[in-house]
């Protein structure tokens, strides 16, 4: 760690640097040519598309083609459909539920790695948590289909143990396993990263003052790692909220989630404006949840 003084010195030095005065246009050119490309790209291909999504919610569709318009018909259409509200309630409820459950499941694991694993064991655990994030979620879900099927690996094991078979595929439980596949590594990783930075002196002090193990976790460790834990739960919410693979291939598509509504609407006769209404609703929901979570995480402790 360098002292903040050093950074200030560098800033001063930079200001006083003899070249600074002489080559202002050149320096500008340098700064712009490095900072503009990402900005231009994201404006062109991220901001415009997302804004365009909002714009086309007011457009109409004629003969399977988009037509610029200013109508609330698409909003009216989606917001008067019962299935939209069902899907919204299901998606929102599942995402909240998953965020809480996965956070709770991940915590002991993150705690173990942060406080009990040492050196290279911890490095290895980190690597193991990073790998699934980059491995095809699609193929992992397909593999779960094979494992969870009625004649799959799990039920074969149960049979071998003389236990009754369990139906897992095409159930809510199956969907949750898919969500866990998607979120668990990331949530554990984010929790772990925040737990590693918990001040060990505080933990030690808490122990010395006679606070029990669970008491220390509840009163010292969780409050210290609060921000990371909330961010992890938020990511879990976001991922679950937008996922269509788990509900479709592990939940059997029996209950429709918002993403499936979007896909179905896009596929059925190019009704992009109606799909956009659902998408914009999702974005607004996510923003609201994200702001609430961030506010909750960063607010001053009592």
């Amino acid at each position, binding site marked *: 760690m*360098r002292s903040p003084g050093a950074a200030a010195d*560098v800033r001063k*030095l930079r200001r006083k*640097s003899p*070249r600074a005065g002489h080559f202002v246009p050149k320096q500008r050119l*340098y700064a712009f040519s*490095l*900072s503009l*490309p*990402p*900005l231009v*790209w*994201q404006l062109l*291909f*991220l901001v415009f*598309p997302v804004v*365009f*999504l909002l714009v086309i919610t007011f457009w109409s569709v004629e003969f399977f083609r*988009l037509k610029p318009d200013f109508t609330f018909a698409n909003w009216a259409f989606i917001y008067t459909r019962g299935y939209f509200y069902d899907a919204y309630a299901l998606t929102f409820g599942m995402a909240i539920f998953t965020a809480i459950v996965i956070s709770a*499941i991940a915590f*002991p*694991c993150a*705690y*173990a*790695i942060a406080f009990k694993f040492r050196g290279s064991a911890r490095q290895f*655990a980190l*690597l193991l*948590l990073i*790998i*699934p994030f*980059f*491995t*095809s*979620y*699609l*193929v*992992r879900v*397909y*593999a779960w*289909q*094979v*494992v969870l099927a009625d004649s*799959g*690996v799990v039920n*074969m094991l149960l049979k071998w143990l003389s236990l009754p078979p369990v139906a897992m595929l095409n159930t809510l439980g199956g969907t949750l396993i898919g969500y*866990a596949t998607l979120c*668990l590594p990331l949530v554990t990783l984010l929790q772990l990263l925040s737990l590693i930075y918990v001040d060990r002196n505080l*933990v030690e002090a808490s122990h010395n003052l006679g606070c029990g*193990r669970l008491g220390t976790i509840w009163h010292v460790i969780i409050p210290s790692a609060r921000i990371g834990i909330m961010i992890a739960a938020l*990511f879990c919410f976001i991922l679950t*909220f*937008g996922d269509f693979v788990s509900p479709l291939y592990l939940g059997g598509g029996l209950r429709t989630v918002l*993403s499936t509504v*979007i896909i179905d609407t*896009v596929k059925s006769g190019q009704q*992009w404006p109606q*799909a*956009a209404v659902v998408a914009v609703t*999702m*974005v607004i929901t996510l923003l609201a949840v994200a702001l609430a979570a961030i506010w909750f995480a960063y607010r001053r402790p009592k």
Partner: protein
Amino acid sequence: MNENRWINLTLYCYAFGIFVFIFTPIAASFVFSFNADRFPTLPLGDFSFQWYRDIISDADIWLAFGNSAKVGFTVAVVSTVLGFCAAYTDHRYRFFGKSVYLTLALLPPTIPVVIMGLAMLAFLSRVSLSGNIQAVMISHIVMCAPFAMAVIRMRLALMPADMEAAAWNLGASQWRALWHVILPFSLPSIGAALFVTMAVSFDEYAVAWFVSGLDPTVPVSILTTLQGRVSPTINAIGSIVFTVTIMLVVLAQILLLRHGKNKTRKILATAKGE
């Protein structure tokens, strides 16, 4: 901290259980890709390369792999360049609206892929760019650049604050300092960013599915297969994809951890020596 052997043991087992859960699908995919039975059950059938042979003789899969490779390389290069620019800007400058700049640079991974896909489809088809491999590249660059930015930014944070300024004071122009100081210092992270972005692009299915049209990538063709019927070839394709991405991520890690330390030491030593 007071330690209790039984509690520690429980925690170890718990962590192990979590890892078992995380790696079950990956392992299952590998095991069943060598299983001769059409319907994967226990006990396993004979060992067989059948599904791999099926892939090799499938022209569509080759096309998809070709598309994935083209997209992966382009996306890796462009998003690493963009990511480096964003990371350097964040590292070097303070300016009005920087938080907006950073939000734009890091936002994409938090946007649900379905929404991203729909937005890209609607927008790109409006400007006649959708339905081909270029559309996939454009969207993947948007999604991958933040990963490159994050990886390179972490590396730049380790850079001694006065190194670049020292180069300027010694008479190097900004471009020279960038070329001789910043780039060598961030080289391991640039390599890592290339691998990471390629891995992300290689696995992305949803946005590619929306915009790819008649040029499907591997994940898109997996998705299409999934919608049809159960096919053990997916296990074989999946195993290949797993192997490729895991190798890319491990390479990135090795670059960041090992090479990173040595390189830093070397550059610092050279800097001191001069």
